[in-house]
């Protein structure tokens, strides 16, 4: 093995700073989990009714304050979701910069807090205090409005995005279709920011981004149809309930076409989020920064907030559709009901299980977020013709094939359910084998640098 000289924290770091960073690193995930579980009573009507009846002592159906309680609860739920998006976006920005630095043999941000963990707060404060410039020739009204379209497109998605067994703001009947629909506001915002800046770099970036996002919505929609066909519902929670806790009960493994659809969806999401290798819209070497070249201060920060908060959305949508969502292995719908108990308020065990389901969902999502970051700093940017070819000549036909195959597959699976079980086990075994080979190869690659010294003391 390589010789790692590793000192964490760096010698000479003040104890107070170490304590503050460790405190923040432990408190922030706990705070985020608390925020999400806090959503449950806020958006659950029977629970709110029980609260009014038993704690406030009014009859919910006739009391005038009932609607005010509902409105206040929804308001709090909205603030909780927005806070969640903002904080995860901030932490991802720090994480991505650290990973990028490691991949490129640099140090990365390491000044604010231990290992630079508090860098994102410093950046946010800095951007808030910067001057908010509007170019003289720009269309001032649309220039100011454009970032809010982008933010709206991102935050509206959070409404239907689940994170646990009861943790979702609204389990809409049209859930996943709603997510596709509101994402289109991001395109409107991007196009608007590019045009209103009155700068050729911005306009080029905006037009590239629009062409890309509109094109990749087609394969994404086709790939989403595969799990929808398997579950028979568009509701995000319904899609997860149709899967199970064990990996071989996930849609990814149950149908060979679903595995293909997962990769189609993942590639399309990278393209829709303007992530490398699809970051043509922000290509620094050609277009300064693309559609947000002219922005500064707070509005500039909004674009980056959306970019990093989108990482969570990318991971969460893929987890919901293909990777079993929040399902806990061995815990069925009956177990959930029996743990909850018959009282108006759920028993303590039910709340504990909510945290477990949230943890499982978060682990899967963060794994995908990690893959997205890893891809970004490994692959070069592709050309625009390659981007269009990939979408229309490969992903769209493959998406149609996966959809047609799923239609036949569902008939076979209904006729002989054993076929689905065998396929799931075979595909799962194959995945385990590929992962094993991958780890072996990584080990081999690491052993090749055994004679080198790796200096990590500057963390």
């Amino acid at each position: 093995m390589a010789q790692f000289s590793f000192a964490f924290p760096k010698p000479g770091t003040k104890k107070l700073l170490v304590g503050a960073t460790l405190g923040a690193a432990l408190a922030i995930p706990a705070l985020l989990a608390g925020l999400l579980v806090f959503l449950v009573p806020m958006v659950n009507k029977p629970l709110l009714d029980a609260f009014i009846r038993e704690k406030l002592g009014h009859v919910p159906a006739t009391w005038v304050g009932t609607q005010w309680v509902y409105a206040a609860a929804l308001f709090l739920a909205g603030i909780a979701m927005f806070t969640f998006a903002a904080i995860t976006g901030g932490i991802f920005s720090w994480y991505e910069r650290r990973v990028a630095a490691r991949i490129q043999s640099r140090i990365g941000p390491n000044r604010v807090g231990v290992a630079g963990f508090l860098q994102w707060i410093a950046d946010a404060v800095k951007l808030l205090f910067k001057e908010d410039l509007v170019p003289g020739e720009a269309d001032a009204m649309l220039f100011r409005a454009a970032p809010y379209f982008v933010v709206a497109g991102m935050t509206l998605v959070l409404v239907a995005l689940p994170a646990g067994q009861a943790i979702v703001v609204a389990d809409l009947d049209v859930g996943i279709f709603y997510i596709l629909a509101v994402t289109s506001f991001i395109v409107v915002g991007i196009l608007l920011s590019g045009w209103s800046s009155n700068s050729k770099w911005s306009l080029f970036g905006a037009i590239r981004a629009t062409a890309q996002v509109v094109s990749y919505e087609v394969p994404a929609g086709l790939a989403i149809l595969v799990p929808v066909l398997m579950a028979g519902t568009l509701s995000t929670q319904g899609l997860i309930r149709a899967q199970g806790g064990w990996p071989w009960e996930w849609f990814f493994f149950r149908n060979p076409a679903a595995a293909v659809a997962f990769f189609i969806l993942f590639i399309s999401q990278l393209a829709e989020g303007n992530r490398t290798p699809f970051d043509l819209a922000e290509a620094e070497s050609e277009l300064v920064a693309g559609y947000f070249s002219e922005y500064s201060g707070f509005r500039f920060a909004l674009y980056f907030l959306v970019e990093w908060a989108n990482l969570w959305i990318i991971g969460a949508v893929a987890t919901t559709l293909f990777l079993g969502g929040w399902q806990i292995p061995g815990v069925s719908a009956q177990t959930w009901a029996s743990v909850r108990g018959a009282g108006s308020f759920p028993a303590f065990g039910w709340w504990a299980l909510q945290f477990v389901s949230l943890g499982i969902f978060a682990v899967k999502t963060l794994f995908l977020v990690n893959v997205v970051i890893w891809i970004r700093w490994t692959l070069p940017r592709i050309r625009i013709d390659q981007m269009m070819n990939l979408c229309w000549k490969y992903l769209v036909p493959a998406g149609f094939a996966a959809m047609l195959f799923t239609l036949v597959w569902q008939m076979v699976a209904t006729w002989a359910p054993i076929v689905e079980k065998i396929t799931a086990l075979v595909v799962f075994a194959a995945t385990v084998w590929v992962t094993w080979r991958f780890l072996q190869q990584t080990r081999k690659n690491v052993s090749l640098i055994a004679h080198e010294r790796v200096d990590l003391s500057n963390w």
Partner: protein
Amino acid sequence: MGASAETVLFWIFAVPLIASAAGVVAARNPVHAAMSLVSAFFWLAGIYVLLTAHLLAFVQVIVYAGAIMVLFLFVVMLLSLTDAELGLEKLSALKWVGVVGAAGMLVLVVSALAQSGPRAMRAVGADFGTVRAVGRILFTQYLLPFEATSVLLLVAIVGAVVVAKEKI
């Protein structure tokens, strides 16, 4: 949710809807008009949701606010109209015809509504407006119009390819 909360929500969506719809007509700059149209569709979706037509609400968001608006903005932007061109009042005769037409439409709608009198909203079942219910109606009762529309779209796609490609 009670009737009063529903009324409040209705006004929250209705007032901006009317304002942005007026903006579509009043805006001098075509891009501003297009943006007003996007926001009008957004507020309209809210009204659809109040009518428990969730699927319809998001279908029109994805179709109008998404695809068609993007195409529309492309056209408007690539025209690159200058302020001088926008200020010209070339079509004054056409404008008056438009005013007469709009006024006539308004009279027609108001008189039709006045004749029908006040009516209570019909109570709908739990599956009203769901994907399942809309799909069933679309593939049984309205199968012919549905298929005719898809043929129309196919013709449009083939037409676009023929126009765009010189040699096929």
